[in-house]
C-alpha cells in the first residue's frame, strides 16, 4: 500500500502533501492539548510499537502471511488525533529510512494510511460503540469492521490516486486493489480483534469508549464517513466509466506538460546540432558514461593517493 516515487503525478502529490500537512499540524496541536508534555514520549514509543507490530505475522496458506498495518488499532486505543500522529511517524520513517514508499509520495502515503485509515476506523468503531454499547462482543465486532474497512477504503484511495495520476487504468486498478485488500483486510481485522480481546482482558480501561472520546472527534467522524462513502461510491463509478478519470488525468497530464509552452516562445528551437531524438539519446548516453567513468577514475585516484599517503 506504500506508493513509491514516480507513480503519482506532481499535482496529486502536492495536493495530498498540503492536505496531510494541515491535518498533521492540527493533530499536533490537539494532542499537545490532551497529553501535554507526555506527548513526545508517548507518541514516539507507540509509533515504534506500531512499527514493530508490523513485524508480527502469521502464516495464512501457501507461503503467504498476514500482518498488521495498525491504523485501526491505533485509532481505537489512542483516539483519532494521536493515531494520526503515530501513523504519520511510522509512514515517514518507513519512507525515509527503509524506502518503503517514496519521499515525494510521502504526503499521499500519510494521507492514505494516516488520515483516511484512521478516520474510517474511528468512524466505524465509534458508531458501533454508540449503537451497541460497551460490551465485549461490540468491541470485537466493531474492531474487526473498523480494521477491515480502513484497509479497504485506504486501498481504494490508493487506486484512485494512481488512476488520477495516469499510472494505472481505473477499471483495472480499482477492482484489483479493492479485491486484494478485501482479503488482506480480513487478516488485519483478525489481528486487531485478537489484540483487542487481549487488551480487554488485561487493561479494560484502554479499550473502553471513554478513551476514544477525544475533543474534535466529531470532525474526524464526519470526515471518516464522508471519505468512506465518497470512495465507496466513486470507485465503482470510476471503474465502470474509466473515461471520466482518464479525461481528468489527461487534463492533468496536460498540466504536467503545461510547462512546455514556456519553451514555445522559441518556436522550433532545438539544441544546436542536436536535431533528432536518437542523436540526443546517444549524446546523453555518452555524456552519462563519461560522467560515471570520470567519477570512478577520480575516486580510484583519490583512494590510491590516500593509501600511499597514510
Amino acid at each position, binding site marked *: 500500500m506504500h506508493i513509491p516515487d514516480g*507513480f503519482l*503525478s506532481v499535482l496529486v502529490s502536492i495536493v495530498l502533501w498540503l492536505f496531510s500537512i494541515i491535518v498533521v499540524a492540527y493533530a499536533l496541536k490537539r494532542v499537545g492539548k490532551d497529553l501535554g508534555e507526555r506527548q513526545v514520549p508517548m507518541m514516539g514509543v507507540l509509533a515504534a510499537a506500531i512499527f514493530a507490530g508490523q513485524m508480527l505475522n502469521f502464516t495464512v496458506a501457501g507461503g503467504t502471511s498476514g500482518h498488521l498495518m495498525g491504523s485501526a488499532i491505533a485509532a481505537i486505543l489512542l483516539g483519532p488525533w494521536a493515531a494520526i500522529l503515530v501513523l504519520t511517524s511510522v509512514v515517514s520513517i518507513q519512507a525515509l529510512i527503509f524506502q518503503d514508499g517514496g519521499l515525494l509520495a510521502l504526503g499521499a502515503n500519510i494521507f492514505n494510511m494516516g488520515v483516511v485509515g484512521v478516520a474510517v476506523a474511528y468512524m466505524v468503531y465509534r458508531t458501533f460503540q454508540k449503537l451497541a454499547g460497551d460490551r465485549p462482543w461490540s468491541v470485537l465486532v466493531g474492531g474487526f469492521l473498523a480494521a477491515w474497512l480502513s484497509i479497504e477504503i485506504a486501498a481504494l484511495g490508493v487506486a484512485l490516486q494512481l488512476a488520477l495520476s495516469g499510472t494505472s487504468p481505473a477499471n483495472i486498478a480499482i477492482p484489483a486493489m479493492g479485491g486484494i485488500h478485501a482479503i488482506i483486510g480480513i487478516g488485519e481485522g483478525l489481528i486487531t480483534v485478537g*489484540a483487542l480481546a487481549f487488551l480487554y482482558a488485561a487493561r479494560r480501561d484502554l479499550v473502553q469508549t471513554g478513551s476514544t472520546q477525544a475533543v474534535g472527534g466529531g470532525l474526524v467522524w464526519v470526515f471518516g464517513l464522508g471519505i468512506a462513502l465518497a470512495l465507496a461510491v466513486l470507485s465503482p463509478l470510476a471503474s465502470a466509466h474509466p473515461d471520466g478519470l482518464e479525461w481528468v488525468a489527461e487534463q492533468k497530464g496536460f498540466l504536467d506538460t503545461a510547462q512546455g509552452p514556456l519553451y514555445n516562445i522559441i518556436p522550433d528551437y532545438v539544441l544546436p546540432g542536436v536535431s533528432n531524438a536518437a542523436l540526443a539519446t546517444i549524446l546523453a548516453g555518452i555524456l552519462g558514461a563519461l560522467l*560515471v567513468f570520470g567519477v570512478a577514475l577520480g575516486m580510484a585516484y583519490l583512494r590510491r593517493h590516500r593509501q600511499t599517503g597514510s
Partner: protein
Amino acid sequence: MHIHFLDPYLERQSPLHRLDPRVKLVLTLAFILTTTLVPAGVWPAYILLLALVLSVEILSELGVGYVLKRSLLALPFVLAAFPLVFTMEGAPLLKVAIFSWRLTASIEGLERFASIAVKSWISVQAAILLASSTPFPELLVAMRLVRIPRLLVAIFGLMWRYLFVLADEALRLMRARLARSSASGLPGAKTGRSVLFRARVTGGMAGNLFLRAFERSDRIYMAMLSRGYDGEVRSLPLANIRPVHGWVLAIGLGTLAAILGLSYLFSL
C-alpha cells in the same frame, strides 16, 4: 539477538558522508522531484539522471552493487502500472489472446510503463543513498531545516530511539510463539491450528506489544521528568552551512534544473 541490522546507515569516509545532511536532504528531494517532472519517454533525460545517481553511488563508496540490490526491493509495485501497456491507445505492438480475452499492447503504453518503472527505480536509488550515508540524528537536524515542526521531529527521534528496543520485543514474542508451537521443518506444512487460531495468537502478541509500549512510555516519561523535561523540546542552534557545501547545493540544483529544462526541449 538485537536487530541493529535494521539501520541502513553504513559508515564510510566518503565525500557524500561528509556532506552537510541539510544539503543532502534538499538535493535528494530536488532529484526525486526532477525525476517525477521529466515527461514520459524522454530517454536522454533518464540516462543523464541515472548517470548522476550512479556517479554519486561511486562517490559514496557504498558500492554500486549494494545500492542496486536494495533498489530492487522496492520494484514489485511496478505491477500496478503494467496494465497501461494494454490499455493505452496507440500503435499496436503485439496482440495477445488469452482464451476469449483479446489484449493489444501499444507502443505508447509500453513507453509509458517503462518510463514509470525507470523513474521509480532512479528515485529509490537517491532515497537509498540518503538513508545509507546519513546517520539518523543528522537526518533529524536536516528535517528542522525544511520546517518540519520541532515536536514532530522530537517524536521521530524518540521513535527511532525505541524502534530497536520494541523490535527486539517483537522478536522475543515471536520466539516465544515458536517455542510453544510445534512446527515441522517441511515447507508448506501446516503449523498450529486453523488460520483463525493463528490470527488470534498474533493479535494477542500485538496487544501484548502495545501494552508493554504503553507502560514503557510511562517509565520513559518519568525518567524524562526526573531529568528536568518540561514539555519544551530544546535543540542546539543549527550551524551555518559551510561555503563548500553551499556550492555543492547550488551546482546540484543547477544541474537538475538544466536536465529538467533539456527534457522539456526534447519532448517538444
